[in-house]
């Protein structure tokens, strides 16, 4: 059995088990879910260790260079005159996916651990949780666009219910907003996907295909087809390929999220229960970034180059705009949500640079943000669970009451604001370096973008330190008085167990960035080379 297939469908299996278990055993559902994620984590670590590196394993646009591949015919319909419809079950990973895959399974374990706070309708929650788990894992492994799309859409459904049913006060609004916003993006993605399908032919079988790797080779496009590189077709007077790129980019940009398509995020994050906030921030946002690499850059490299300026600009705007918004927040979770917008801006900037440093930095930033936002949302959940309040101004002097908690907060905050020794520093500095270097290497981004982007690091220090000062230091003074003071007990064993590995991970990646860079480097170089050739 293929390991990727196993890792994708393991959660589904465990979901089935939960579905079949009688509701009497509801207290054990969380252990089953945790077990599912742990099994997944073990498999992903195995994959990580056995993932081969070297120029022969670059991946990107070479189908044979992907690893742990499985390709089975899935839907084959004879459409008569229109040829054969060919949809494959096609999974495989290269350097771009492997680090995100490991990060995802790690974050899912944390999310499962933080699901302890869920008290109602456990069966539904954990089944949806595991379906979501399957969908996100599937996205990172799929190499067939049709499959990718199915997993991509499949993430929305459980999330809608998870936010809408287990969320906070304004959960219905947030859930619907999230669902419609993302659906808006992906519906148009469907059109482009079909357009690509009709343009690309599998050179071996001669059928139209959804194979993403084949979509990257201009030779596979039928002459005169809508997305053919040579044909220069137009849609509404605009270059068809540019339209395709923009539509796909908008779909993924909503997920990332890129300003101005980000407003679903603060609401969804604030209203979602902690485990779902963790999955949203830790994994969902990376699906956006991953999609930009795998689909936008790789299938439309020509447009990605000519539009790099705009991508970079959006990245810089996201960095600065998100940071300023975070500065104005009075709700801890909302502050973290806006900081995510700012941090994901670095990813876009790094990708837009199309340099090895920039892309490596962007991937590192995604992995790092996966761990860090998980940690931040978990930490926000800790005090919310105790006193059901997150107002920054409602707390003061938490450090005296919860010293261990404060220690983890300091680690998470400083790691997030890019203190060297932690992973975010590596991600940010190389995204910026790549962006700066871009002008001399390929002339895509002007120098000032990186310089402006580094201002985000400065404002980042501002909002994190301000929050630290207001909530954690000073003399003890809570809005809820002594009731809160007794409720705010320090971290328990489970919480420490959750936070400790996360802190270790961000530290390890900061000290040994090669943990990520070593595995992704060949793919990064392959991608850079591919983008240069166009």
């Amino acid at each position, binding site marked *: 059995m293929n390991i990727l297939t196993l890792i994708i469908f393991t959660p589904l299996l465990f979901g089935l088990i939960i579905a079949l278990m009688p509701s009497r055993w509801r207290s054990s559902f969380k252990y089953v879910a945790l077990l599912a994620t742990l099994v997944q984590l073990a498999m992903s670590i195995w994959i990580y260790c056995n993932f081969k590196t070297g120029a022969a394993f670059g991946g990107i646009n070479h189908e044979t260079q992907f690893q742990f591949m499985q390709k089975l015919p899935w839907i084959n319909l004879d459409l008569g005159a229109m040829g054969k419809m060919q949809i494959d079950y096609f999974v495989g990973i290269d350097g771009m996916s492997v680090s995100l895959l490991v990060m995802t399974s790690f974050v899912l374990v944390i999310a499962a651990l933080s699901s302890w706070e869920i008290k109602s309708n456990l069966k539904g929650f954990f089944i949806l949780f595991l379906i979501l788990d399957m969908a996100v894992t599937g996205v990172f492994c799929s190499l067939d666009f049709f499959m990718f799309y199915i997993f991509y859409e499949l993430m929305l459904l459980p999330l809608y219910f998870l936010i809408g049913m287990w969320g906070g006060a304004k959960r219905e609004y947030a859930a619907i907003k999230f669902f419609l916003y993302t659906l808006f993006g992906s519906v148009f993605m469907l059109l482009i996907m079909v357009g690509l399908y009709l343009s690309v032919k599998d050179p071996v079988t001669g059928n139209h295909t959804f194979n993403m790797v084949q979509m990257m080779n201009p030779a596979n496009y039928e002459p005169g087809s809508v997305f053919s590189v040579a044909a220069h077709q137009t849609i509404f007077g605009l270059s068809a390929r540019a339209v395709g790129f923009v539509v796909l980019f908008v779909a993924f940009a909503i997920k990332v999220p890129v300003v101005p398509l980000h407003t679903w995020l603060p609401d969804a994050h604030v209203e979602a229960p902690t485990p779902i906030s963790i999955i949203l921030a830790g994994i969902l946002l990376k699906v956006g970034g991953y999609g930009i690499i795998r689909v936008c850059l790789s299938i439309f490299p020509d447009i990605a180059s000519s539009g790099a300026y705009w991508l970079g600009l959006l990245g810089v705007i996201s960095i600065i705009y998100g940071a300023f918004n975070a500065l104005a927040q009075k709700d801890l979770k909302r502050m973290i949500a806006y900081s995510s917008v700012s941090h994901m801006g670095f990813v876009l900037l790094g990708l837009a640079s199309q340099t090895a440093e920039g892309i490596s930095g962007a991937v590192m930033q995604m992995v790092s943000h996966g761990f860090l936002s998980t940690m931040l949302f978990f930490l926000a959940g800790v005090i919310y669970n105790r006193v059901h309040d997150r107002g920054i101004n409602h707390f003061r002097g938490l450090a005296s009451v919860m010293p261990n908690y404060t220690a983890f907060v300091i680690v998470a905050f400083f790691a997030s604001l890019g203190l060297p020794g932690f992973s975010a520093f590596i991600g940010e500095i190389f995204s910026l370096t790549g962006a*700066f270097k871009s002008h001399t290497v390929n002339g895509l981004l002007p120098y000032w973008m990186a310089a402006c982007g580094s201002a985000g690091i400065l404002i980042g220090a501002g909002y994190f330190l301000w929050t630290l000062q207001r909530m954690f230091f000073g003399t003890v003074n809570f809005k809820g008085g002594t009731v809160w003071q007794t409720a705010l007990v320090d971290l328990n064993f489970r919480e420490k167990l959750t936070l400790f590995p996360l802190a270790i991970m961000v530290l390890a990646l900061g000290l040994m*960035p090669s943990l990520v860079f070593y595995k992704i480097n060949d793919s990064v170089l392959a991608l850079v080379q591919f983008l240069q050739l166009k």
Partner: protein
Amino acid sequence: MEQFLQAIDTQTIIFTLTAVLLPLLAFVLNITMRGRWDKISGWVSTVAILLSCILSGFVFARVWNGHPVHQQLLWFTIGNTQLYAGILLNNLSVLMLLLVSVIALPVHIYSTAYMKDDEHYTRYFAFLSFFCFSMLALVVVDNLFLFYISWELVGFSSYLLIGFWFKRHKAIMANKKAFIMNRIGDMGLLIAIMVLFTQYHTFDITQIFADNGLISRSVMKNGLWVSPTGHLPAIWQYIACGGVFLAVAAKSAQFPLHTWLPDAMEGPTSVSALIHAATMVAAGVFLLGRVYPMFNGTELTILAIIGCFTAFMAATIALTQNDLKRILAYSTISQLGYMVMAMGIGAYASSLFHLVTHSFFKALLFLVAGIVIHQMRHINDDNGLGIDPQDIQHMGGLRKKLPFTFIAAIIGGLALVGLPLTSGYLSKDSILIHAFEWADGKGPLFKLIPVFALLTTWLTAFYVARLIVKVFFGELRLLKNTPGIKLHVSDGSWAYKLPLVLLAAGCLFPLFSANPIEFTRSWLFKGFSPAGGFGAESSAYALLPVLVNSLSLLVIYWAWLIYAKQKAGSLLQRGFLYRLSFNAWYFDEIYNNGIIKPVLALGRFTFWFDRIIINGSVNSLARTGILVSKLSSWFDRNIIDGFLNLLVAIVRAIGNFARKFQNGRVQYYLFSMLVIILSLFILKILV
């Protein structure tokens, strides 16, 4: 032979590495054992720094004036760039390595007594060790990337230590301010590093800044900055230097980023002695020393102007402050200004010389201040007075109560003023003489720099005299205001005295030169001067020190008259100049109203924009959707459905009409048939 030398070098590197990592080990031990070994944690850190100190001594002896040692290991690969982690030992780095550990050792010993009763004693030493680790790493790393890492870690550990008493509002405001201002510098350094990396494709300090390195082979041509490895528009050379300057200004508290340092005095005094007098603030000057070749003439002049301005400005502020530690803080800013100015005028060796001597006497003065404050706090606590123990207006006459501390203060003070027989004399006069030499042959405006530097010397003499007289001479003013208070005051245990002795020894000339008058004879100065370089004998300004020092003595006497004897007229305590000085030239107010408030307002504005405009448009899109759906629903119900209903109604009406004929009565059917046939006939006849 070759191999033997190689082995020696490797050993040197291992010694250095151990010296750097020992404090880190102490940090890890203390942080993990928190709460369990409260008694010995201080000694864990102290022993670690002692060993570092000894190892640094070895390394120093081997490398000073010998060949530089440089070894590195591959750290990671990104794209085609390989990043190395390595150690670079040359005169500059071994000097700093030794200096940092030598200053840190007495501070550690002192801290074991000074922080004895603090509830977070272990945490204090953990942080202190962490600071030592980052500072030691900073001075020995061999590439800009690692340099940036240690640079930020230094800032971070300083943040932890300034806010060590995190329950005090002022302390946490101060550490936030310090970190954010340092971040501005970090940003500058980051941009500079990005520019250099883009230009030279490497982070390696030797490759870029060595004598025949990449920088020296770069030229400005036709608006381009051309190097052997590529070219950039010329403006980026200036931006890189500007970035480095920002970094220097932030760490070494130069105008315009100096305001964090006085506030940072909220930390424990022992911390101020180590970090905010001797080491961290010197890091900026050290950075200048590392990247010196990248500055061109104009940039150096700007550096000199800013350094000189900072020195003067901070000295004028120090004249009127009443907080013991803040006076010392402004004095530090002023002295750092001297160092930056010296770098700017090309007096590289003098700048580093002053860095070293300043570390000793300023650390000494801070430790003295710590003892005084400690004793004042005792008096305060014993008698429940509720005064500020750092306010020199309450002090006076302490020379009888604290004789040992008094002598240390005198030595430190004289060195700070720069009177003969002290180390400060050697280094300060070397800067002043260089400044005059530099201004020779330049325009008259350039003369302002040595003149202001000279003025600053006398200002220094005045505020030092004022400080020492107010604290140690006369009568204890507290006693005058509230008679009958109990005084149990003493110099303290050996852990207080030994550090003072060690540092005081470093404030005197023998450590640096056998000749107490001529700075050129100092080994330290020679170590950084090219062979056959500057000689004081040849200088037209050889007699300058005599003038400077005799005037300094006069100023000191004047201050003594004012504050001890109260004979000479007291300085005006009002007027614009006094207010300007007392309020530190209003920089805090200007920054607060001119920068911080607008930035926060901008944050609120973007959030408003986000909520109302961006989110508003999404919501109005949703509302439009709902409106359209309502409209279409109305259309559906009233028009489309209405049409169908109309059809139905018509059909039904017709049906109802037709149904009337189907009533089942034969007569009626006959009658209707008759009517129809008759009407047909009538129609036929008529038509």
